[in-house]
Structure formats: structure tokens, C-alpha cells
């Protein structure tokens, strides 16, 4: 059995997961597993209308039921809250009106969940239905106002950026093309539904165990929502069953659990049902997009104009950031002479959208890559060749003022081209079969925090006990991506000790230094760098202690495995012994490190979205077969290359690539968070909302390329999100290659293929 860590540090062989054993034996506790003494069960009553005025609420029957401990109506929170400082527009429970089907408006606590549910059926709420608002932009026509607290009309935010003279670039271009696309929204569908246990203790302290990716932001937002000082709130995250962006802000159930706990004086657990998760959402925004580009005679990309219109749902959530992200990363892959972006986000009466893996960059990347493919087709060029000529080079600055460090993009192109046999096989696969290419790039953490502050984005603390154990404490959350293991690996490598000595404590605002959270692929780079600083400081103390003990200068202290030794002398001492010397000299051994990214280069409004200490790069080639009779699309093979800098945990890197790629495959083939005309979700369950199963996944060939990045810990960049992005356009391009149809929306369902084939045939006949 290879579950133990090897004892020699020279062989820090990496177990895939330090907590792997607990997850395979059922011992790992998730938020819905943590049983607190005397715990009560909470339940949220949700709106049965997409848009309605709440006329009256009668709670008496529910309150008097035996076993019912508390029944609360909104707003619950004492001040509105929200993840973006400029958009504090949420309350725990709706009052006045409800703005999406499934919006919570009442909270109930009872001895058992069954009783809480029965009480939910006993409450009487009268509604006056209002017209649902399901479209964006000018299609809304005289639509009623969704957010009465937010300006006039339903436009949440419009943003504009321009770098260089785009009008001139397009006017003077040798070749121009325009394309439009609708990217359908979709859900994260982490397998673990959200859950929280909250206890408002009699001493005034509020403690939560919640399935969140961002304990720090939950603590901050809760303090605002409840009017409590931050230090009175402690947020802990038990084992987390997946996030993908869906657990990245404070949610109504978290506030409600706290309020119910205060009312009944007991810990209260609220676990969302799968259906609730579709209403809680914060998933991928549906986006309507338009791109226009102009190329010169040498096929250089002179100018690009990109427009996006996001369907935000009923609340702001991360919306402003999402909107900017739909225009932020187009230039990280291609050199563009002049670039213009216009983005809009609209309020509609649907569950709020937010960040999902690839946050805001996935949708525009789909259109951009489909567009580039069509440009190549129009120009009679190989789509990979067209890109090769205009790749944004390593160590350069993009047109929108982003600093690129290492880039393995060219190697990504080479790798997928080679693996797929692109040159030899393209155009020769036979009827109905095709190959499609796309590439992309993603952040290794956002350069700026969500709320402005000059503090470190990540802090890590190392303590060495008298037992020789290394305790790492850091606010990160392991959402299943293996963040705790990466910290253990970095600690072991940087301190030169066996992995088995390292214990990681994370995701607890009460005991760990702040890390902003597991979003924007920031953890490995930012927490990793913070940890390396703490480790350097710790080693320094140990070296000083050894030098003092042996009466030699510190530079003469050397390492031999875990042991300390003196250069050229026969002195040596074990790790634990030296740690004790150091504790005798300096007191208990604790060091800390923090990491703050360099300030971004851009100074324009909106320049806060897009900068990152390092960018990852990806490419994908899809091989597909389309059945022209029934419209069925089969993805037969995917070839994927990714540049994650130094892969710190190669098996996890592979796992992240595969997981991201398959999530992308689901988005392009089947997933849709879609709504009926009355505003109801079309299928808020796993039969109505399908995700890929084992049978839907083709063979995926992977190449990991790239160089160590100077800004990454031991050279590491991100891998959690980037590899998803190129898959969607690669499949779309492969369909065009296979049967010559241009698709204009996701997901690519058989009926859409048939319709496009039909249109193509009619065009053919007309000629």
C-alpha cells in the first residue's frame, strides 16, 4: 500500500491527495455530515413565481405546529449585502416582492427536517404576480423593473474600453469579418449541494461550518448583513464537495441559518436540495456576443471590436466583474493592433448568475475562436497557421495593458497539432467527420482583490512543534482541487522535510491567516508564494540556531536530507533536534509570509479586471462525427495541451485538465440553465439538466507543456480553469469542418444541427 509518505525527503514522492484515505473510506466529513449536539434543522420557503409582489404572509399555523422552533420572514439581514462593494443588493429573505422562481422568502427551524418541511406547507403567502422579465437589452421593451433599488430600467451596468483606434483599424483593413453568438447559461453542478450549520452562541459569537469556497468573504459579508463585528464571526469549511465557482459568496441559506440559530438558541443546519441549487445558481451567464475583426495584407490582426450582453438574473452577484471579464482576456492570446470592448449586464427575473470555472472568459473565448476559424476559412488559411502568426509572445504587454510572463501557447499549438495528426488527417477523415481547433488563456489569480485594500491576498503561517512536526496554517479552501496537498508539497520541498511531517490547517477564519479564497485560480500561486516566504523565514531561524550551536557562520550550515550539517566538518543533527535548539534560542517557532501581486500596469477604469501575476495557456483539437440524418454529434476524441508552468502535483494537474475538459464538453453538448416563458427553470433536476456521464466522455489525449514561471511558487501557474475554455469552440469548429455548418449558439443539440443543415441545403438550392 503506498498511502504513507516516504520517509526520505529526497524522495518527496507525491501522494495524489493527503486526505485521499479519508475520502475513500467515508470518513471525510462534509458540511451536511457534521452533526452538532442539539442541532435543529432549517428550511427555506421559496417563491413559486418568477416575479410577484408579496401581498401578505401568514405564519401562525406554521408557528404553532409541534416541533417548530422558529419561523422568520424577511429581510432578516439588517443591511443589504453583496460580494461586490459597489453592489450591495441582497437580503437573506425577500420582502416586498420576489424576483425569481425559487427565491427564498421565509426560513423555518424545527426539531426535524420533516417537521420543517411540513411547516413550510402550512405557511400562507399571497402573491400578486407580475410579468416575468426574461430577455435582455432592447428585447425587454416596456418590461417591469426587476430591482426597484437599482436605477431606471433593467440595465445593471454598461462598460466600455478602447485601446487604439478601432474604427480606423477596421476601416483600413484588407479583410474584415463579423460574427455573432449566443452562449447559453449553465450551472456548476458540484455534486455536493450547499450546506451550512450555524450556531449563534450565547456568548454572542457566531460560528458557521459551511460549504463555501470563500470563508473570508462569507465572514465579511455576514458581518455586514447581521451588523456584527467581523471578529465575532468564525467561518470554517469542512471537506468541500466541489465548487467550480458556485460557492463563492454569501448565500441566503447561510444568513438564514444564523438568524434561525439566534431565534431558537441552538445550532441550525440548512442543506440545499438539488433543486434549490439550481435556484441558488450564480452559474455561467448567458451572453449574446458580437465580434468584428480587421486583418491587414500580412494577416495581422489590426483591430477587434467585441460586444457582449449578459443576462444577469435577479441580483448583481459578481456581475460587474463577470461583465468586464467578457472583454478582458481576448488579447492574452493574440496581438491586436487596436481593441474595443463594450459590455452590458441586464437584470432579469431568473436565478442570479455569477462566476463559473473560466469566469466570464469562457463565453467570449467560444465566439472568438469560432470567429478566427471562419476568418481562416475565408482567407483559405490553415486555422492553426493563422493563429501562429499573431500569437501574443512571452514576456510582453497586451494591447489592454496586461503583463504576460511565460507563455507556452506556441507549444500548446504544436502539441495538439502533432497529437491529432492535424496536418495529415484534416480534410481526409471522410464524410461527416471533422477536426476543429481552438486555444485560450486564463489567470493564475486576479491581480486585485474584490474589495480594495492594501493587505496581502494570501497569508500563510508555519509552526514547528517540539515533536518536529510542521504545521501549516492558511486560509485557503480545498474545494477538491487538491489545494491542501499542494501546500503540503510546497512546505515539504521548501523546508526539506518528509511530507509526512506536514499537517495543513486551512479554511478557518478563526485560526488561519486570511487567504481571499478559492476562486480565479489563485490558490497555488498566491498561497504558495506566501508559504514559501514563511518557509524561508523558518529555515533562517533553524540555520541560525544550528550555527550558534556549532559556533560556525550560518553560511556553513548545510542540509543532508532532513538533517542539518556543517560544511566540511563531521557535525550533523536531526531536524527535530535543530528545531529544539531554535525553540530554545527564539521561543516557540512560528513564522508567517504574505503575498501581494505587483500592482497592475493599466490605469483606466476597468483595469482591475484581467491582470494576473501569470497566465496559463491551453489549446484543444476536437475530432467529431456528425450524423446528417438525425443530427447526432459524437465527439470521438479530444487532444488537449496546457501550460501550467511547473506542475507541482502532476497527477492532480492531469485530473484538473480532465475535469475541466469534460465540464467544457458538457457545456457545448448538453447543458442549459434554461427557462420556460413563465420564468420557471425548465428542469431543476438531474434528468432535466444533464451532465456528462462516463459514457459521454471520449478518449482525451493530454500534453503538459511550458516553462517555470518567475512569478509562480517553484514556477507554478494555474490549471483549474484554463483547460475548459478551448474545448467548446474546438467542438464547434470541428462540426463546421465535418458538415460545413456555422452554429451560432450553445449547446449544440441534434435539433440545432439539423436546422443548420437544413438552412445550408436551402442556401445550396437557392444558388
Amino acid at each position, binding site marked *: *500500500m*503506498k*498511502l504513507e509518505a516516504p520517509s526520505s525527503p529526497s524522495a518527496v514522492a507525491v*501522494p*495524489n*491527495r493527503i*486526505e*485521499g*484515505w*479519508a*475520502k*475513500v*473510506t*467515508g*470518513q*471525510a*466529513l*462534509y458540511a*451536511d*455530515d457534521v*452533526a452538532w449536539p442539539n442541532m435543529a434543522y432549517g428550511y427555506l420557503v421559496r417563491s413559486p413565481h418568477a416575479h410577484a409582489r408579496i401581498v401578505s404572509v401568514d405564519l401562525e399555523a406554521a408557528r404553532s405546529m409541534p416541533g417548530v422552533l422558529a419561523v422568520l420572514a424577511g429581510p432578516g439581514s439588517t443591511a443589504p449585502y453583496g460580494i461586490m462593494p459597489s453592489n450591495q443588493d441582497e437580503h437573506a429573505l425577500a420582502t416586498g416582492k420576489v424576483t425569481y422562481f425559487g427565491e427564498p422568502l421565509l426560513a423555518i427551524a424545527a426539531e426535524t427536517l*420533516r417537521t420543517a418541511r411540513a411547516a413550510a406547507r402550512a405557511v400562507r403567502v399571497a402573491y400578486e404576480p407580475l410579468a416575468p422579465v426574461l430577455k435582455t437589452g432592447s428585447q425587454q421593451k416596456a418590461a417591469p423593473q426587476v430591482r426597484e433599488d437599482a436605477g431606471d430600467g433593467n440595465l445593471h451596468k454598461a462598460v466600455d474600453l478602447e485601446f487604439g483606434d478601432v474604427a480606423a483599424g477596421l476601416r483600413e483593413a484588407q479583410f474584415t469579418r463579423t460574427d455573432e453568438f449566443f452562449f447559453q447559461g449553465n450551472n*456548476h*453542478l*458540484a*455534486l*455536493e*449541494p450547499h450546506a451550512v450549520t450555524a450556531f449563534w452562541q450565547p456568548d454572542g459569537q457566531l460560528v458557521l461550518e459551511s460549504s463555501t469556497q470563500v470563508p473570508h468573504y462569507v465572514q465579511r459579508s455576514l458581518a455586514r448583513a447581521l451588523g456584527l463585528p467581523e471578529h465575532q464571526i468564525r467561518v470554517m469549511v469542512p*471537506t*468541500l*464537495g*466541489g465548487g*467550480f465557482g458556485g460557492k463563492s459568496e454569501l448565500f441566503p441559506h447561510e444568513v438564514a441559518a444564523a438568524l434561525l440559530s439566534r431565534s431558537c438558541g441552538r445550532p441550525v443546519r440548512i*442543506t440545499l*436540495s*438539488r433543486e434549490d441549487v439550481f435556484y441558488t445558481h450564480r452559474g455561467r451567464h448567458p451572453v449574446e456576443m458580437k465580434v468584428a475583426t480587421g486583418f491587414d495584407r500580412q494577416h495581422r490582426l489590426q483591430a477587434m471590436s467585441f460586444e457582449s450582453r449578459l443576462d444577469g438574473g435577479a441580483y448583481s452577484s459578481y456581475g460587474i466583474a463577470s461583465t468586464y471579464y467578457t472583454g478582458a482576456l481576448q488579447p492574452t492570446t493574440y496581438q491586436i493592433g487596436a481593441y474595443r470592448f463594450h459590455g452590458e449586464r441586464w437584470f432579469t427575473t431568473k436565478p442570479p448568475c455569477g462566476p463559473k470555472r473560466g469566469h466570464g472568459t469562457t463565453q467570449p473565448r467560444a465566439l472568438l475562436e469560432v470567429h478566427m476559424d471562419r476568418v481562416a476559412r475565408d482567407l483559405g488559411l490553415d486555422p492553426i497557421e493563422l493563429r501562429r502568426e499573431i500569437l501574443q509572445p512571452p514576456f510582453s504587454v497586451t494591447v489592454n495593458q496586461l503583463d504576460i510572463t511565460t507563455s507556452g501557447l506556441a507549444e500548446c499549438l504544436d502539441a495538439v497539432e502533432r497529437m491529432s495528426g492535424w496536418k495529415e488527417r484534416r480534410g481526409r477523415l471522410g464524410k461527416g467527420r471533422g477536426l476543429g481547433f481552438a486555444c485560450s488563456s486564463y489567470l493564475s489569480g486576479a491581480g486585485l482583490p474584490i474589495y480594495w485594500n492594501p493587505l496581502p491576498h494570501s497569508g500563510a503561517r508555519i509552526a514547528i512543534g517540539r515533536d518536529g512536526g510542521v504545521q501549516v496554517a492558511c486560509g485557503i479552501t480545498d*474545494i*477538491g*482541487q*487538491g489545494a491542501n496537498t499542494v501546500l503540503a508539497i510546497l512546505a515539504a520541498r521548501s523546508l526539506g522535510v518528509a511530507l509526512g511531517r506536514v499537517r495543513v490547517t486551512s479554511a478557518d477564519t478563526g485560526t488561519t491567516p486570511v487567504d481571499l479564497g478559492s476562486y480565479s485560480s489563485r490558490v497555488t500561486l498566491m498561497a504558495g508564494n506566501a508559504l514559501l516566504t514563511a518557509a524561508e523565514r523558518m529555515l533562517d531561524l533553524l540555520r541560525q540556531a544550528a550555527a550558534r550551536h556549532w559556533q560556525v557562520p550560518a553560511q556553513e550550515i548545510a542540509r543532508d536530507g532532513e538533517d542539518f550539517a556543517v560544511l566540511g566538518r563531521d557535525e550533523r543533527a536531526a531536524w527535530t533536534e535543530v528545531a529544539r535548539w531554535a525553540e530554545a534560542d527564539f521561543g516557540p517557532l512560528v513564522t508567517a509570509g504574505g503575498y501581494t501581486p505587483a500592482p497592475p500596469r493599466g490605469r483606466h477604469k476597468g483595469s482591475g479586471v484581467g491582470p494576473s501575476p501569470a497566465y496559463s495557456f491551453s489549446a484543444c483539437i476536437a475530432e467529431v462525427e456528425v450524423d446528417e440524418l438525425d443530427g447526432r454529434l459524437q465527439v470521438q476524441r479530444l487532444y488537449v495541451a496546457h501550460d501550467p508552468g511547473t506542475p507541482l502535483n502532476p*497527477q*492532480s494537474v*492531469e*485530473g484538473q*485538465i*480532465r*475535469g*475541466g*475538459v*469534460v*465540464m467544457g464538453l458538457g457545456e457545448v453538448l448538453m447543458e442549459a440553465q434554461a427557462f420556460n416563458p413563465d420564468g420557471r427553470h425548465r428542469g431543476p*433536476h*438531474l*434528468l432535466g439538466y444533464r*451532465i456528462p*456521464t*462516463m*459514457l459521454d*466522455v471520449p478518449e*482525451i489525449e493530454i500534453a503538459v507543456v511550458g516553462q517555470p514561471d518567475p512569478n509562480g511558487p517553484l514556477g507554478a501557474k494555474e490549471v483549474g480553469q484554463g483547460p475548459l475554455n478551448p474545448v467548446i469552440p474546438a467542438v464547434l469548429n470541428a462540426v463546421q469542418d465535418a458538415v460545413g455548418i456555422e452554429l451560432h449558439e450553445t449547446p449544440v443539440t441534434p435539433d440545432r444541427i439539423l436546422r443548420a443543415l437544413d438552412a445550408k441545403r436551402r442556401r445550396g438550392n437557392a444558388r
Partner: protein
Amino acid sequence: MAESVMRLRVNGREHHLVVSDEATLLEVLREQLHLHGTKDGCAVGSCGTCTVWLDGVPRLSCVTLAKTVEGRDVVTIEGLAGWWGRERPGEGAAAFHPLQTAAVEAGAVQCGFCTPGMLMAGAALLRDTPAPGREEIREALSGHLCRCTGYEQIIHAVELAAGRMGEATPDEA
């Protein structure tokens, strides 16, 4: 709400339980026996995370009414290693079923929420089909959703375990 007393054998141990007529087997395992390893990913039979063995057969405990399984034998993820130990007398207690070990080694575990159900289905497959082919594995596990791994490393874990179990019992191969 009607309740009844029932007998249930779980991971080799006999229990007498007072169970509500509406309670699912999943609820009884998680809430009454505190065996939290079995997960609730959807509660309506669509994700596979709640899979346990009922008389040796993988079953979705979220859509199994507890009172319908009176007197029967249940194995959950917490009991898988114990079952494996009992299957192989003389080998001593086992901390892990070979598939559990293989899952960790193959990188088949990310967030781990699908893992208990996936492993219960995989272990049943390995018991009944000692050297399953890739297609057999995909077929047997296709009712089990995983959002993290993209599945390949899970398939690999089953193959890895099958290989090792084959080596260990050459007479059965």
C-alpha cells in the same frame, strides 16, 4: 406519522431501529446510524452518490424506503474494507479494499463526494467480474456522476485494482 420497529444488518452489525414509514434507507444510514460516508447528491435516484450494497447488490439508498428492506444486509462505504477482510479469511483485518487504495493512487479522488457511491459500484463489479474490460467498467459506472475528475482516473483505478486482485488470487483469474 407512522413508525415501525425494524431489523437491519449494516456492515456486519445487527440493528433494531424505530423508523418512520417515509424514511429512506439513505436517511436511516446517515441520520440514525451516523454513517455519513453515503452521500446525498440528488435524493431522487439520478446521481449514484448514495449507492450501498443491499444483500450484495448496489442499490440507490435515496430511493429505497427503509421499511421495505427489513431484515436485510447492507454494506456501506464504511464497511467495504471490513467486508473485504471477511471475504479473505486468514489475511487479517483490512484497512482498505484494493479499489480504495487504487482510487487514491490513481488520482480518482478529487472532491470525493462521488467517491463512496462510485467505489461501492466499482467494488461490486470487481467482485462479480474479476477482470472487467474498459467498456464493462464504463457501463457499470455510467449511472454515477462525477463532476471533478472527467472519469478517466476512476476507470484507471478500477483497472489497477482489478490487476492487483487478479494477481492476488491466481486461481480465480
